[in-house]
């Protein structure tokens, strides 16, 4: 009687230890398995796109990198990414030129300038801006922003037309050009840049700021000498994350831009195109071969965003504290 009880518990303990080892093993393998699955997905994306692109590139009659037009389904398939590369880079560049200074300003506003009562709700508001779907940005962009841009574009044309960039050769055309797209992209990537930069500015050592103030610095001098140098890697990587978004943005660009296979530095003239926009517009109507050709352009986009994001993450990883995970 008395001896069976300990034996029983010992047996149960033995069983539970075996169970737990088994359970541990299963659980460990499951969680490691999903980690591996993630790597497999990334590899599969690259692999599938590369395979399909190879099919298309072999039959391309034009030069993939220098051809302007996109006509893979013609009798003589010709397609190239020159216009797309140009449009993608230019619109992303405009977006960055506008969004980065404004985002840094907003981040400073939230972390150092705003009265505490409005800083928190405002941070909240900027995060909500990130939640607006890109299709809504697109709809708003084409039906609200484009008509409202017309005054500004004719203004730029009048006073800055001599810079060539703002010279409008097709007067009166709706402002569905790379410049408007750049502004829209700037609005769209503002929240993520702000969110990451804000986190960095929050982590500036208080002692640095107080030391600067104690030496008689004004608030701006304090920001310039203590906050900005500390936050510089954060600003750079936040900008690159934003750049990654701007490069890959699809639907908003597809709606707003009136595309054409032309490559022109006249930013206010409609025309041009981007990788993602081109795929979205042409994919459903394309023949199987045309789809393979679009996969090739998708692969280029994938590699570009991979490099940009990878570089951004490398810079962040050096300072592990601010990852901007929830942005």
């Amino acid at each position: 009687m008395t001896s069976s009880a300990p034996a029983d518990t010992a047996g149960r303990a033995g069983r539970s230890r075996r169970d737990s080892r088994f359970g541990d093993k299963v659980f460990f393998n499951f969680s490691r398995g999903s980690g591996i699955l993630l790597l497999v997905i990334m590899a599969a994306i690259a692999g599938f796109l590369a395979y399909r692109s190879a099919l298309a590139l072999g039959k391309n009659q034009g030069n993939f990198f220098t051809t302007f037009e996109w006509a893979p389904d013609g009798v003589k398939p010709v397609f190239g990414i020159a216009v797309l590369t140009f449009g993608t880079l230019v619109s992303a560049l405009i977006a960055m030129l506008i969004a980065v200074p404004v985002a840094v300003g907003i981040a400073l506003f939230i972390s150092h300038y705003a009265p505490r009562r409005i800083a928190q709700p405002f941070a909240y508001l900027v995060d909500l801006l990130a939640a607006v779907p890109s299709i809504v940005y697109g709809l708003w962009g084409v039906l609200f922003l484009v008509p409202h841009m017309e005054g500004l574009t004719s203004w730029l044309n009048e006073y800055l037309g001599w810079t060539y960039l703002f010279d409008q050769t097709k007067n009166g055309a709706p402002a569905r050009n790379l410049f408007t797209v750049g502004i829209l992209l700037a609005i769209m990537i503002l929240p993520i840049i702000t969110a990451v930069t804000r986190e960095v500015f929050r982590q500036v050592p208080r002692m640095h700021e107080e030391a600067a103030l104690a030496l008689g610095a004004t608030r701006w001098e304090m920001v310039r000498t203590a906050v900005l140098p500390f936050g510089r890697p954060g600003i750079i990587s936040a900008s690159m994350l934003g750049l990654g978004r701007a490069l890959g943005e699809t639907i908003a660009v597809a709606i707003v831009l009136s595309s054409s296979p032309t490559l022109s530095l006249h930013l206010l003239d409609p025309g041009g195109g981007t990788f993602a926009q081109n795929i979205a517009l042409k994919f459903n109507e394309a023949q199987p071969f045309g789809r393979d050709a679009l996969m090739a352009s998708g692969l280029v986009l994938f590699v570009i965003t991979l490099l940009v994001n990878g570089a951004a993450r490398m810079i962040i990883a050096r300072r592990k504290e601010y990852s901007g995970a929830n942005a």
Partner: protein
Amino acid sequence: MSATTTAPAAPLLRGDLTSGRLPRWAPIGVAVLSIALGCAIGAGAGLASHIQWGLIAAGLFLALSYALAVKVEGRRQAKDRFATSVIWVAFILAVVPLGALTFYTVQQGIGAINGDFLTHSMKGVVASTTAGGGIYHAIIGTLEQVALATLMAAPIGLLTAVYLVEYGRGRLAQAVTFFVDVMTGVPSIVAGLFVFSLWTMLKQGYSGFSGSVALAILMIPVVVRSAEEMLKLVPNELREASYALGVPKWKTIVRIVIPTAIGGITTGVMLAVARITGETAPVLMLVFGSDVINNDPFNDPQQSLPLYIWQQYTVVNNEYGYARAWGAALVLIAFVMGLNLVARGIARWRSPKAGH
């Protein structure tokens, strides 16, 4: 000796502190003045676009506050004031588009929404020449696709986060961390292309499910990152106490660690859901769109809200289409923002307090 030298210095010092400062209301005054001037110039010159009015006002504000401060307070203070003004202008620049976007969407969308709009599909509606029809089929499609994507992405994402936080050492964990970060930046259209080529290889047609696979690919990294952050916040003492009682590791994770962080994990998943709900590009390629109700996400094309907006704009492309598009956009925004607010509410309500 010393008394005589300090005595004349005293009034000078006091003078330094009190004189040469702009009054507290000066920035507001300058702002009001420059807005008034901006409007006056804009209206006077007959500039049609309010964007120009705003830019003029902003420029005037910066110039006036700098000039005023240089005159009264000196260079250094003026620079400080200028920086403050620039930052306030940046703040306004961010508020204006959000305000305009929300206001315009509500203004345009509210008229389209009524009982019929929410409970009917587009079946039998000649979209290009008549008003009417609705988004019921799109709502069904979006809910099903997003639910399926969440069912795939949430467990995988959570398990990956558990691996990284609880087990992750060495090369594999480093690689996973890096590629999760990189995967966050995969453009949605690329995910769509990948699933499309996978699906053609498997000889499958358009379906809601293929769309949800692409959405899941976009969702996984977001879930991993937020769950990882939350699991890291769980105090180590809890784990150690559990081990000390002889509880196996997997049970500690399932019963102690995850329940402690569940608030934050839920928030992360909901934010990820909010993000993929608005994705259009992969849905456009994989789900294809349909005018009728299709309750089966595994066979035949479905509709979804973002895709519905896209089609109403690009295919119909007239006032009837715009009205329906705005109605759907308002529903979509309300859904996404509601999800966001609830998620952040949960986060605030039951976030694990780090190291208390």
